[in-house]
C-alpha cells in the first residue's frame, strides 16, 4: 500500500529566516498544496526557493509546521529517499558520474532493485530525449540537457512529491517544451508538483499559481511590480 494519502502538503504558519539578525524570508505562510501542479511566482528573494527547501526538509523549520501527505514531516529520510524528487536550479548533477550513473545512483538510494533501476533509467532518459547522451558526463552536456538529466534523475524514483526550482531558467523553447510535456504526462492522480519559476511558458501547466510577491515588504513589492510591468 502506498504510504501517502492524497491530502496535499499542508503549510501552517511557516516562518523562516537564514540568520537571527535578518528579516523573515517566510513569515507565517499558510497554504495547502493539493495534488496537481502549483506554480510559485515572485521576485527574487521573496522566499520561493526557501519554501521548496523547507518542504523537502533541506532547511530546518524555524516556526510553524509542514505536513506531507500521509502525515510525514519534511525531514523524514524515508520520504526523501522514496517519495520526494527535487530539481535544483543549478549544481544538479554529480560531476564525475555519467548521466546514466546519476540516475542509477538516485534509483539505488531510493531502494529500487537493479533491474528496475536499469529499466527506469532507460525509460526516463528516452522520454527526456537523453538516451544518446547516457554515457556522457555533465560537463559534456549543454545547460538544457543538464536540466533535463536532473529532471530525469528526480523522476526515476517516480515520487509523489516533485519540487522544481526554476527548471526552465535560461532554457530554449525546445528544451522547455520537452520538460513541459514530461511534467504534464507525469503529474497525474495524487502526485503533487510545486514549481518555483519566473517563466511564463510554464503557466499552461499550472493548476494553481501562487504569487509570493505579496509576502514581500511594501517597498520591495513595489520594486517587483515595477520590474514586471
Amino acid at each position, binding site marked *: 500500500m502506498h504510504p501517502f494519502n492524497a491530502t496535499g502538503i499542508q503549510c501552517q504558519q511557516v516562518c523562516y529566516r*537564514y540568520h537571527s539578525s535578518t528579516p523573515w524570508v517566510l513569515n507565517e505562510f499558510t497554504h495547502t498544496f493539493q495534488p496537481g501542479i502549483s506554480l510559485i511566482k515572485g521576485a527574487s528573494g521573496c522566499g520561493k*526557493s*526557501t519554501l521548496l*527547501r*523547507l518542504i*523537502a526538509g*533541506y*532547511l*530546518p523549520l524555524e516556526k510553524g509546521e509542514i505536513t506531507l501527505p500521509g502525515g510525514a514531516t519534511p525531514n523524514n*529520510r*524515508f520520504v*526523501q*529517499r*522514496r517519495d*520526494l524528487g*527535487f530539481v*535544483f536550479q543549478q*549544481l*544538479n548533477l*554529480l*560531476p564525475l558520474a555519467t548521466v546514466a550513473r546519476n540516475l542509477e*545512483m*538516485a534509483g539505488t*538510494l*531510493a531502494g529500487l532493485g537493479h533491474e528496475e533501476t536499469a529499466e527506469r533509467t532507460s525509460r526516463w532518459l528516452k522520454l527526456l530525449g537523453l538516451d544518446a547522451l547516457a554515457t556522457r558526463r555533465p560537463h559534456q552536456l549543454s545547460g538544457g540537457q543538464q536540466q533535463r538529466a536532473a529532471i530525469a534523475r528526480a523522476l526515476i524514483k517516480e515520487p509523489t512529491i516533485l519540487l522544481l526550482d526554476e527548471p526552465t531558467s535560461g532554457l530554449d523553447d525546445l528544451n522547455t517544451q520537452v520538460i513541459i510535456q514530461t511534467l504534464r504526462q507525469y503529474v497525474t492522480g495524487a502526485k503533487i508538483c510545486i514549481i518555483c519559476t519566473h517563466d511564463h511558458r510554464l503557466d499552461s501547466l499550472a493548476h494553481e499559481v501562487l504569487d509570493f510577491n505579496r509576502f514581500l515588504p511594501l517597498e520591495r513589492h513595489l520594486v517587483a511590480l515595477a520590474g514586471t510591468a
Partner: protein
Amino acid sequence: MAALILVTFTLLEKSLRERLSKFGLNTLVAREVITPTSADYIPNGEVPNRLSPLDEFGRMLRLRQLFTRAKSEFAGDLTIFTYGQESLPVLAEYLDANTGLVCVTDDWPEGSYVTITLNRQSGQAIVRRAGDLLQPINTADFILVPQNWSPDLDRAGYTDITLFEPLADGLPMNRFTEAIAITYSLDRQTAPQIQSALPVLRELEALQARQNQWRLAMAALLGLSLALVYGAIAVLEFRQNLYVGALLRSFGAPGKALYFRQWIENAFVANAAALVAIFFLYSVHEQLFKMFGFSSSLINLKVHNPYWSEEMVLILICVNIGAFISSLPVAFGLRRSVGQVLS
C-alpha cells in the same frame, strides 16, 4: 623519509650493540706488559695479583699472553695464553679431563681435539668457542696452556691480562677503572692499559640521545608535513565533498554513512601510500644501506628486519591520525544543512 631515517638509526644502534656484545658489555680487561727487566718479572712463576682486592666484586680471570706463537696441525698460527692454578675455577667450563690445552677457535668443531706444537713440544688441545668469558680478549684464534706445561715459555716476557666482570648488581664500571688506576699509583706503577665497553657505551648513549632528538625532530617534521598535506587535502575534501555530500543527502543518503565512507577512503589511500613507501624502502634496503657503508651481516633482512618494528607502527599510527583529521572537514560540511549548501 621518516622510515629511512628511523631504519638508519636502528641499524646504527644494532651495529654498536654487536660491537658491545663481541667485546663483552660488562667486562673490563687490564693489560700490563711485563718484560724480563721488570721488577714484577718472575719466570714461570706466580706473581701476586694487584687486583685481587676486586675479587669479591665480580669474576676475575688472569692470563699471560706470550710473545711466541704455537702451531696447530692445520698449520695455523695461534696466540698463546697461559693460565695459573688460581684461574682453574673460572676456566673450568673450558677445560677437559684429558688435557689442559684449550684451543679457542670458531674454525673447528667444538669438542674435537687438535694437535698443537709450541716450544718444540706437542700436545692435544680440546677445541672450544670463546664464549662470554673469553670474547673480550678479542683475539681470533688462541690457545690456553697451563703455566707449568712447558718451561721457559715466558722467557721473553709476556702481557699480563686480567679480565674482570663485575657482579650484575654491583658498582658501575667506571668505579673499577678508577680503583685500578689508584691501586697502581699506590704501588708507584704505571697504570695498565684498561679496555672496557665504556667508550662504546658512551657512544651508544650519545647515539641514543641523538636518535631521540631525531625522533622528536622526525615526529615534528612528520606532524608538520602531515598537517600541511592533510590540511591541503582536507580543504580540497571540504570544497569537493561539500556539494556532493549535500546532493547525496538530498536524495536521502545518511550523513554518517557518507562521513564513514570518506574516512575509510582517506585511511585506505594514506595507508596504501605509506605501505608502498615502506615496501619500496624494504625492497632496496640491502643496496641502499650497503651504499651507506653498513656491513652485510647487519643489513641482512633475514637476520634483522627493522621494517617490522615499533617505529613502523608509529608511522602508520601517525598516518591514520592524519587520515582521521583530514576527514573532519567533511564531517563539518555534512553538518551544514542541504538547503544552505545547494542554494
